[in-house]
Structures are given as C-alpha cells and as structure tokens.
C-alpha cells in the first residue's frame, strides 16, 4: 500500500497555471471544468505585502468523506492506496460526494458522472509524476510515496515547515504546502 502525497512549495509557485493547462490536456477535461486550479492570496497593505499562490486539487484524503458517503461505491481508494477515484460505471451522479468534499474538488461531467483529480494514476502506474508535477516550470511541485522515507516528498516534509488545507476536518488530506 502506498501513501501518495503531493508537496507544493509556495515559496516557488508563481501561479502561472501551467498545472491547470497540463492537466486539461493530459486528461482531456471538458471545456469549463478543471481538476486543478490556482489560488492567489495577498495579505497586508501596500507596500507591506505577501502573496501566496497555491495550486489546488483533490487532496486524496486518507479519511475521505467522499468515499464514505458514496452510496454506490463509485468513489473508492485506488488499489488500497489513498488515491481517490470515481468509477464512472457505478456513479449515478447523485452529487453526495460533491457535498461531502471539503475542497470543492469534484464536478459533474457533461456525460453525467462525477469527475475529479486522479493524481494521474494512469501515469503513476507507469512510474511517472502526475502531468501537473511533470510540467511545472518552477519545480515547485513534488509527488511521491510518503511511506518511503527516502522519497523527495518525505524528505521535504521532514525538513521544511508545511501546512495542509482545512486540516481540522479530520479528512487527513495529502496535498501539502511548504511555507
């Protein structure tokens, strides 16, 4: 069993949206619907300012409320890992998972099923990074298995300060932001 995590260095992220475009091409998401997005947060008053950019997506929670609430079992953890997938054949489009997701990471496709970030599990299965990570021109995104102590993601979380989003939900999210 693998514990996949994405670690994103907000010190380096420039909010360019390459992750969004790369995801869109790789996964052919429908026009107007995206599996990832960029948030800009500026604090302070001119000229005492800080800006944080965050590339956001499904957090592939270890304790995923979307999986727990799915009445058909369409939302599931992939191969016993924490990667959350939706099996379109079993999805009825009831949207319970959309209500249950704290991150607003899911959408309904024109075909009627729910879709979301897959951590590019089709690439992960081939030993590749997700498309967003592979294209990021600032190298601010990292992907790997937290259970492997030697992985870059484990190393980064070991030595840098980090945060997760909405950590109080108990969902145990797996997208980490280095601060």
């Amino acid at each position, binding site marked *: 069993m693998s514990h996949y995590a994405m670690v994103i260095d907000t010190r380096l992220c420039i909010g360019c949206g390459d992750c969004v475009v790369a995801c869109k091409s790789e996964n052919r998401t429908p026009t107007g619907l995206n599996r990832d997005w960029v948030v800009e947060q500026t604090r302070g008053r001119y000229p005492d300012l800080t800006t944080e950019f965050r590339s956001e997506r499904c957090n592939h929670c270890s304790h995923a409320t979307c999986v727990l609430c799915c009445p058909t079992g369409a939302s599931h953890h992939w191969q016993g890992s924490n990667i959350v997938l939706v099996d379109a054949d079993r999805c009825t489009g009831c949207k319970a998972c959309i209500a249950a997701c704290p991150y607003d990471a899911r959408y309904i496709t024109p075909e009627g099923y729910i879709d979301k970030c897959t951590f590019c599990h089709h690439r992960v299965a081939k030993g590749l990074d997700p498309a967003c990570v592979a294209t990021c*021109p600032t190298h601010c995104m990292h992907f790997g298995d937290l259970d492997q102590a030697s992985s870059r993601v484990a190393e980064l979380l070991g030595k840098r300060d980090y945060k997760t989003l909405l950590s109080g939900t108990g969902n145990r999210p797996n997208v980490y932001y280095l601060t």
Partner: protein
Amino acid sequence: MKRRDFIKLPGLAALGVAGGGLLSGCQSRPLPGSGEVTVTPTVCEICFWKCAGWVHAENGEPWKITGNAEDLHSGGRLCTRGSGGLGAYADRDRLRQPMLRVEEKGRQRFKPVSWEEALSFIAERMEQIGERHGRDRLALLSHGSGGGQFKRLLNAFGSHIFAQPSYAQCRGPRQVAFALTYGEDVGSPDRTDMANARCIALIGSHIGENLHNGQVQTLSEAIARDATLITVDPRFSVAAGKSRYWLPIGPGTDIALLLAWMHVLINEDLYDHRFVEQHTLGFEQLREHVQSFNPEWAWLETGLEPERIRATAHELGRHAPASLVHPGRHTTWYGDDTQRERAIAIVNALLGNWGQQGGFYRPEKVELPAYPAPKPAKPASDWKAAIQADHPLAPKGISHKVIEACIGDQAQVKGLFVYATNLPMTIPGIADKLNRAADDLELMVVVDTLPMEVTGYADVILPECSYLERHDDLRNSPEREPSLALRQPAFEPLHQSKPAWWMAKQLAERLGLGEYFPWQDYTEVLDWQLQQVGSSLEEMERIGVKTFPRKTGLYFSADDPPSFRTASGKVELYSQLLADYGYDPLPRYTPPQQPGEGYYRMLYGRAPAHTFGRTTNNPVLFELMPENHLWLHPITAADHGLKSGDYARMKNRVGVRGNPIRVRVTERVSPRDLFLAHGFGHKAGGLRLTDGVGGDDGEMMDNIKIDPITGSTGMRATFVTLEKA
C-alpha cells in the same frame, strides 16, 4: 506518423477543447494514453523563447504537447502557453484560404481566392512597384520563425527594408546599451546565469508573469537556493513577492536608484577592482559623475529609503561576481531607456560579472552552414539613411519608422509585407498612421494564422499554417551548450493554410527568382544542414534536440580572458561614441513626467497565460484567462465607486475611451498607478472568443516617449482617468 488520418476527421477544430459528446451514458472514458500514441518533435512558436517539445497524438487525435528533456530552453518543461499550444492548431477562427481585397482600402471586404490568384496578384504588383519606383521599395515587418523566408524573398527582389517590433517596442534599448558598453548584446535566450547567482536584482522585470521559460526556471532555482532577490517595481509583482527586498520605486526613477547603487559600490569600495582596471574604460569619469548621487539624493527621487538603497547595494557587492542586475527584456518605457540600460550594464561591470559564474555566461551556438544557394545582392540604397536618419546609432530597423515611410506620394516604401505581427496592437499610437500607410501603399500583404487587426489593412491575406503543421528553420539559439532543435509537422495543414517557406518559394518562382530557393521541399535544406554537422533529418525526427560540445569555456578565466568588440576593446563605462553623437556619455537621470491631478499612470505587463494578443483567442488559454483585469488600489477603487468585478473604462488625456475592462481591486498596485495585462481588447471582428473582451493598453497610449538613441517607443507615460462602464 498519423497525420493523414487526421485531416479527414470532421469537426477537427473542436479537438482538444471539447472531448465530450463523443461518449454517451455514464461510461468512463478510456485512460489517457491507452490508445496508439505517436510523438512528433516540435519547437514551440507560442513565444520567441522557442522551447523544444513533443506533440503527442493518440489514435490520430491531438492529445498534448510536452517538453523535450534534452532541451536547455525548457528543461523538458513547457510553460503554460506552450502546454496550451494545441489551441493554436484547433482555433476555429484560423485563416482558411488566401483572400484578396476587392473593395476600396480600409474596409474588410475580402474575397476568398486560390493560391494561384493570390500569389500572381502579389508578384504582378511587386513587378509593377519595381518598374515604377525601383526594386528597393518593398519592406518587411516581421516577428516569428517564418519571417526569414520573406526576408530572403524581398532581398532577392532587391529590397532590404526590414524591421521587427521586438526591437523598437521591446528589447531595443537593452540591445543598444549592452552593445555600447560590452560590444555585444545580451542575446536570446538571455545569457543571465541566474541558476548560479547569489544575488539578483530585477529592474521592473516581472519574470514569473513573463514566462520566458529558462528565465523562470533559473530564477526559481536561485530562489530555492536562497539567493538574495531584489525586485524594483512600483507594483507588487509575482517576483516582488518572492524577493528578500522589494523596492516599490516611483515609476520612471530607476536611473536614480542605479546611480545611487554605483555611488555606494564605488565610494564604499565594493566594486571589482581587478575587472575595472583590466577591462573597463572611463572609471574615473564615472566615479566623478556619481559623487552627488548618494542614496539620500535618490530617496527624494525614487521614494526609497536610503538604508534600503544601501542595503541592496551591499547585497549586490557582497555576492559579486555571482551577482547581477538583470537587463530585463521589454525595456521601452520612458524614453531614456538606453541610458537606464547603460546604467544597468555599468552596475554589472562594477560587479565584474561578465563571463563569470552567477553573472553572465558565454553563450555558444552551433556553426551551421547555410544551404548552398545564390546570395541576394547587397542593398542598392541606404534605406536606414532614408527612413531613420534621426537615429544613427539604431542598429536595426525601427518598425514605426517603416510605417511612416509608407505614407505620402514620395514615400520610400511602396509595398509592405507583414509577417505574423499584429501592428495595431503592437506599436503604440500607430492606428492613424497605419490607415494612411494603407491608403498610400500599392501593395500590402499580411501573412498570419489568425484574422488580426492588421489583416484588415491588407490587399492580400495569406493563411499560414500553425507551427504544429510546418517545417521552419532549425532552432540554433546561443545557449549554455550549443544545440539544434527541429520543428516538424505533427499534423497536415488545416484548410488551405501553407508554411512560409512554400509561400516565399512560390512567389520567387513567379518573379523569376526561383534560383534563390533551390529546393522542392524544405526538408532538403534541413537535412543538408544537419548532415554538415554530423546529424541528419532522420536522427532529428527521432530525438528533436541535439546538443553539441562547447568550443570555449562557459565562463572566462585568467587563462581565457574576455575581449570586447567596442571601439576601445574595453568595457566602455564612459561612451565616447555616445558623446560623439551628442548623447550623454554617462547615464543621466531625468525626472519622469507625472500624471497630474485626477490621472493615473497606466502600467502594463504580461500575464503567464498569454503571449499578448497572439494567444487570447487560443481556446485552451482563453479558458485559463478569458479577459484581463484593471488592477486598482482600494483607495482608487473607492474614489471611483468601483469594486472587484465591476467594469470600468480608461480615458486618456486626448479623450480616447477604452473598452470596458473588469476591475480587480488589489493592494498589489499603488494608489498612483493602474495595471493591466497587454494583449486584450481585440477589435478585429474575426476572433470569436476574444473580440471586444478586455482592455487594450495600446490604444490608450498618447504620450509616446521616443528614445533618441534607439528610436524606440517609451510607453509608460500614459496617463488616464477612470469611468464606470
């Protein structure tokens, strides 16, 4: 390759943007890449950086473009725009067939015609101009890979008038200032060794919002290694947010800061004595010149506290030579831009970073022989003397001067070719002149992929295929390591579009100039050139990028000292050449014109999602950023009763009112300035996604500050008021 299957598919224009609809019910789509995948090498044309990558098609349908891992320009990672490159192919508004103006000039009444008709028309008009006025009376304005083909055509015909807006509207001051100081330009890609720098100062350069790929990557590397980043910008740019020092300078006062930095570096003895003594000329004059420009003086001009000016000068000096002031790229701001760039060049010389690790490296390109073909004869006349004599030091054609030279009965230019550059949104305040030029020209040809504003002025429109459907010259840019990259067609050209090499050759043959284009297919040229350097087209089709060993060191050393192609053979801190032509031999600070009561200074820049107006109709990039926003400080917004999401219009001092543009209220801009990304507010009429969307900074520019040295257009003295839209 699967190209041929591809053209047969109906509704191709929607590919890559609307994958849905092909499937029904709640059945999942197959996983990406599970079909038959083919890859074709490409060189991106979404911006001039020209990263090398791979075009992926799955089951014959366009899928994605990724970077080539061997490519130094991209490090295997394309930027936002490059990743969205398929949108340039899929754009449903592309020019589809040649078109000929059939009504009077100025109206967009074009009749679709055959290639034969369009090319014959152009050839006849060219001959006519040659007979009536002389064969040296055609001009080319160009930006992009295929421009060289038309340049060759016009040169063979006997005309040499040539300009790129990337000179007079962008990098001109930097190019001239570095050539004056070091005897050579910074070049492209910029030779900044940021990955190894310990301290980097950006003067108004918003790397991160401009996504020049290698620049973004090396700056990011520097930040990751905790290099000291100093960003000088009135706006809290993305780079400012990554900086240890953000200096929110008063707009247009950069030279004052640079002079104060020189003052501190010299007076506190922080400059590189060895470099200055061995390699520079005019240090004593410089020392004397900067004595009165201490940080306290600069404070009054720039609004920056003296301690911050000193601290940042100390940082620059402490890390030298692994320390640099970035020359920037778009440098046409206030009209004294060559002087500002000279000041940047001089601070760098004091840091002794030329050819040093962490400063400026020595770029090297491949010595690639030209395909054996007759050389066009030398120009019969001195066209620069005829059209831009007032800027004798300008090494390149000045685009707006070329347009001015199209106006009037006695005009120097009688026929104009415009290749892939949308003049009305590129050159500030050019609309009226372009109208007059179009009236007087006997021939105007526009070559482009999309119906832009400039196509409306043409007599003939030639539809070029996108970069994903054509061969172009090999990319051979100076880099850390010499390398070649191949652009190969990934798909058959859509509609009736054609590559530039084909158009130029066809025209040449109709003009009896076929001998200058002695190839049936451009692959012959590419293969021959590659064979000369031990490669082949076959090899490049497999690998896309080939890197060659360097012949010189990446940096200079005691055994391998630098030489400078200036008149003195030294780095000219004091420029005798400038003095001889009546310009300031040492950078002089001129206080900028201020907006005045009720006006704001309009600042503009790039957004990472777009290459200005060339990509705003790209369906993939349009989705990411459909419109630009007008950034207002909260005080400005409150004064005008505006909030984020409202629409406003800018109005300049001569009464021009802009398009409605959506307001973004943010602390990231000062209360005295406004900011917007350039490239929006298209009015061409044929761009269905982007027409009429967003604001165009260019049309607001009424107070252009011409740089006397380069002839370039300073665009940051535009003052506007606001109206609710």
